[in-house]
């Protein structure tokens, strides 16, 4: 009975409540407060970097910045052109690119193979996933002393260190994406009597590509990181070596040229991977469009 009473009184409540908000719009005719970031300015992203260079240039020109600490932008540019005309920059860049490329190649191959083996069979999962998750907790660069002990200080060690860092990134992301494939799609493939080869080609590979590309982008970054470290250990060539030498002779302009080279390669390689990703994953409809 009491329950019935509360129900009958309930409808009387809403009209009272609705009277309050009815007043609010009349007293607030302006548009609502904007909480989003607002409209974009063309090339607005360039403002920050340009400002930094302008400050650097101004500080150097007024003599506020000691050239032994940081060379002026003009000096860096002329040093770069000297390095290019003597061929020193190209030689070092080429050897660095070769190391990073080889490391990336072997790392991607190994990471994907391991991910497929662990993702598609229980045996693979039990044998591979545990060690690789443990390996993930150890930074690749921490393995450096052991790898130098095993492989010496030659090219083999350098490529191995880079490949290790890449492989772990590739494995973790590809494997996560592969095991995350919707089980409904697996059920569909079973219902359509797909062969194992068809299943891998039509479901597994396309389904794990998003993770593959996340891994690839992280892997490319990891390859540059590995490169920088290995090129400062008993190297006789490469951008890192060039910078290390410059440090000995206090040539901050050469160091800056090396940093810019690393930056350009890092940025360009990431942009390249993203471009390929956009093309390959064109079926995806995401927020980024």
């Amino acid at each position, binding site marked *: 009975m009491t329950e019935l009473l509360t129900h009958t009184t309930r409808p009387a409540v809403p009209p009272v409540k609705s009277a309050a908000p009815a007043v609010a719009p009349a007293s607030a005719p302006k548009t609502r407060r904007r909480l989003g970031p607002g409209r974009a300015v063309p090339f607005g992203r360039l403002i920050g970097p340009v400002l930094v260079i302008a400050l650097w240039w101004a500080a150097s020109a007024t003599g506020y910045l000691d050239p032994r600490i940081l060379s002026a932008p003009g000096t860096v540019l002329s040093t770069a052109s000297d390095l290019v005309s003597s061929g020193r920059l190209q030689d070092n860049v080429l050897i660095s690119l070769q190391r990073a490329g080889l490391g990336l190649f072997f790392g991607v191959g190994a990471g994907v193979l391991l991910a497929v083996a662990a993702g598609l069979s229980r045996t693979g999962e039990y044998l591979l996933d545990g060690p690789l998750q443990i390996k993930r907790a150890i930074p690749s660069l921490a393995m450096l002393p052991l790898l130098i002990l095993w492989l010496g200080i030659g090219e083999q060690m350098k490529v191995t260190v880079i490949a290790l860092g890449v492989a772990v990134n590739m494995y973790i992301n590809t494997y996560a994406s592969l095991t995350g494939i919707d089980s409904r799609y697996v059920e*569909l493939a079973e*219902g359509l009597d*797909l062969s194992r080869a068809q299943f891998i080609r039509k479901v597994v590979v396309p389904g794990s590509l998003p993770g593959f590309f996340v891994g690839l982008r992280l892997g490319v970054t990891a390859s540059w990181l590995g490169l920088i470290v290995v090129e400062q250990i008993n190297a006789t060539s490469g951008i890192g070596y060039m910078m290390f030498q410059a440090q000995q002779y206090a040539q901050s302009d050469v160091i800056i040229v090396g940093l810019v080279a690393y930056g350009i390669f890092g940025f360009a390689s990431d942009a390249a991977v993203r471009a390929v990703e956009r093309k390959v994953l064109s079926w*995806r409809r995401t927020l980024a469009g």
Partner: protein
Amino acid sequence: MATHPGGLTAPGATALAPRPAIRTRKLVRRFGDRDILKELDLTVAPGEFTALLGRSGSGKSTLLRAVARLDHMVAGSGELTVPDRVSLSFQDSRLLPWLRLIDNVTLGLRGPGARERGLTALAEVGLEGRDRSWPHELSGGEQQRAALARALVREPELLLADEPFGALDALTRIKMHDLLRELYERHRPAVLLVTHDVDEAVELADRVLVLEDGRISVDLTVDLPTPRSRRDPRFQEYRDTLLTALGVAQPQPQPQPLTEAKKDSR
């Protein structure tokens, strides 16, 4: 349709009749220590359109998955005979988002002319010229029609459909009912349609089963000419019989608003 021999005659006689599309004997499926299907016997004749009703938890989906032979990890026993060519359609269209429509429809098709067959099937469901579209470019109803094309392009002897219209809006659902019935008349596969919608079952199927507590409790032959009208008094009769079998109280004006109000207050 009403005189098919399954279920009533002796096993010897069944062997002489055309091979049934589905035949189960003492089918048991068990999750943990709970039997979901309890020695279920079911025979569906070739070309017979059967709807399977049941409350949630009654074992509808378990039965469908058993007949589709998709229950790898499920404990059970009993006999099960199904034809070679079985197609499945699900509540979601389950189109692979990374394949274009035509590749989705012909997925797993073998032999020459697969593409042509796929195009024909797409045209049959009214998606002519959309073969190069991505699944996400289609509306929900169109996706479900594409899924139907994928099921039919395999020329199934048995079509298993698990609430295929459950996620569609009411208007699209009416169109899909007509399309399914039309495609059925043309291809004549045996159909097992799992649904929770009594009206849908009576409108589409020639035989309606009610699954209750792991067994078939009602086996009703719908003897109405197609297309069927929901306003036909005999339609209402079938409907009421099935609703009663499902344990749904007949609508009475008095208690209905009370229970509604109780729900609202929470």
